[in-house]
């Protein structure tokens, strides 16, 4: 073998090539991103224009003169029906609804999933099947019966009323994801805890919950975004005093009289979507990890 032929032998790391396929893929990804970012861009620039400029058309242009007045107006002055206090009370209502609903529904979902995965009681499979089925029933079917039940027990149109509704509707999917996560944990761990003297509740608190971080994060993200974005249930069950941000946003946007102020509408919409956006930005990494977390090693 002569010395030169050595240069043609594969040696060390494989060289990286930019292939046609790769370039095509990047183009596609770029187009996708553009497609999904376009509405956000339009919303932001419109919210920073004044009404004259909006009326002149040119949806995609950047504002000639920045005007910030739409933002404070959306926040504290825009009219939602008869009152004109902006979105501020809605934000507080949404927080008051979301936080307890998420805590209660995620805790109960975890407990359900744990019971189904580890304590294989009689009829556990049937119950699990029922849960799966429940996850596919449309909300609308249950709105009227639930409304009747809640008025009968006297919590309709109140904060506890809407929290109960969110908890009920979150239960099937939360039970499902917790059960599937727990079913992936080694059963020996649970057996060891039983020999060590844990009962149903103690094992849950001391052994199972400390191992549930990834799936709990997934569940919290699901519930926060779901409950925050909810419109129908908030409209029906929360009552006039507790209307969440989404309902108030609708009231701002759907004006029956006067001029439609698109810049205020856009600002209000962005304000309403800030919480879910924020949740996705800080937790995207955790979300993927939690979804993939069938296997955490002990």
């Amino acid at each position, binding site marked *: 073998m002569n010395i030169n032929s050595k240069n043609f032998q594969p040696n060390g790391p494989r060289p990286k090539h930019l292939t046609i396929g790769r370039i095509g893929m990047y183009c596609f990804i770029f187009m996708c991103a553009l497609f999904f970012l376009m509405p956000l861009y339009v919303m932001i620039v419109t919210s920073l224009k004044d009404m004259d400029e909006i009326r002149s058309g040119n949806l995609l242009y950047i504002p000639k003169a920045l005007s910030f007045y739409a933002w404070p107006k959306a926040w504290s002055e825009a009219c939602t029906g008869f009152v004109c206090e902006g979105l501020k009370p809605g934000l507080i209502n949404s927080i008051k609804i979301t936080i307890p609903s998420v805590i209660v529904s995620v805790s109960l979902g975890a407990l359900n999933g744990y019971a189904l995965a580890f304590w294989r009681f009689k009829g556990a499979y049937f119950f699990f099947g029922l849960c799966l089925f429940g996850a596919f029933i449309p909300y609308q079917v249950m709105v009227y019966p639930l409304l009747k039940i809640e008025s009968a027990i006297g919590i309709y149109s109140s904060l506890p009323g809407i929290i109960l509704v969110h908890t009920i509707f979150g239960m099937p999917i939360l039970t499902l994801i917790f059960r599937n996560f727990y079913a992936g944990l080694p059963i*020996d761990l649970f*057996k*060891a805890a039983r*020999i*060590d003297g844990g009962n149903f509740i103690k094992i849950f608190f*001391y052994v199972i919950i*400390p*191992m549930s971080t990834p799936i709990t994060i997934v569940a919290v993200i699901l519930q926060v975004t779901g409950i925050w974005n909810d419109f129908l249930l908030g409209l029906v069950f929360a009552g006039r005093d507790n209307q969440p941000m989404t309902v108030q946003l609708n009231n701002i946007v759907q004006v029956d009289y006067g001029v439609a102020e698109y810049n205020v509408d856009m600002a209000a919409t962005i304000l309403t979507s800030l919480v879910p956006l924020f949740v996705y930005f800080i937790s995207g990494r955790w979300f993927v990890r939690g979804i993939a977390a069938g296997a955490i*090693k*002990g």
Partner: protein
Amino acid sequence: MSMKNSVEVKNISFSYGKTEILNDLSLDIKEGEFMVLLGPSGCGKTTLLNCIAGLLDLTEGQIWIEDDNVTWKEPKDRHIGMVFQSYALYPSMTVEKNLSFGLRMMGTAKKIIDDKIEKAANLLQINELLKRKPSQLSGGQRQRVAIGRALVRDAKVFLFDEPLSNLDAKLRAELRYEIKKLHRDLSNTMIYVTHDQIEAMTLADRISVMKDGLIQQLDTPKQIYNKPANLFVAGFIGSPSMNFLNAKFDKTNQNLIIGKRHINISKYENINNLTDDQQVVFGIRPENIIIDKNENSILCKVELVEPMGADTLVWTSIEGTPISIRLEGSSNYNLNDEINISFDINRSSIFDSKSEERI
């Protein structure tokens, strides 16, 4: 070892739905005894252990531990400690918390917990690991901690569920030695499930060989190795495994007839139980075949040689049936060498072809 029974399994049955795993099984384990449940996977040995631990509910029968009918008691009230194949350490707790978990659940005083942990940690040499999480430990260390968890609880009976199966060969031998030492020092009753016959032979006071939910033979390792009760036990115990030859008994000459070959078995202990023309299986372990020319020897050809260091395994065949012979590591045979082999009949086993029981 006293004569008192520590664990009594009385006529238990267990089934998963319609699948019957254990049927009317009984087993007495003496105080301080090291009992190994040995068998291939699916034989019901782990199920039996889980039934004793109370992790599975029996379909029928009783379990007694230390003169106490624990059939309906929770696992925590059975005076047992258990070590699992997967270690089953609580991943979110440090080693120390893992060890103390059982005691904390019982509400034991802090001072007593600390004392017990120190004692167990010293015994198992895991003092340096107490502040670590299980994920920072090697497999061997994890299993030590798991054993420690059973130790700390002052269990009367230790249950081991294939504790060494996840470890590599070297560690397995090391920990096997330590478990044996632990039993020597603590002299607790121990019940140990394994499919590894070396573990069974080295650790056990008595082995119970299981198959299809039934105990095939319950005896000391020596007895099980030398006088297997049936064909299954004979084939399962021993590596390389026992050689089997189908034969017919010729009473007048006291010979076994294998094709054209004859083997004289007049020295076999139970020869009087054999009847003329009886179809039998002749079993002989590789180390009980002698290369030696005499009037009874059979001429064979070496077909394969497997040097294993301490021993050398030489393969040949009689009437088409492969036969392995275990020789010293220093012995030197080559392919196609001609050898004369004879059998140590005293140490052979003869089984009835139909019932597969030892004669």
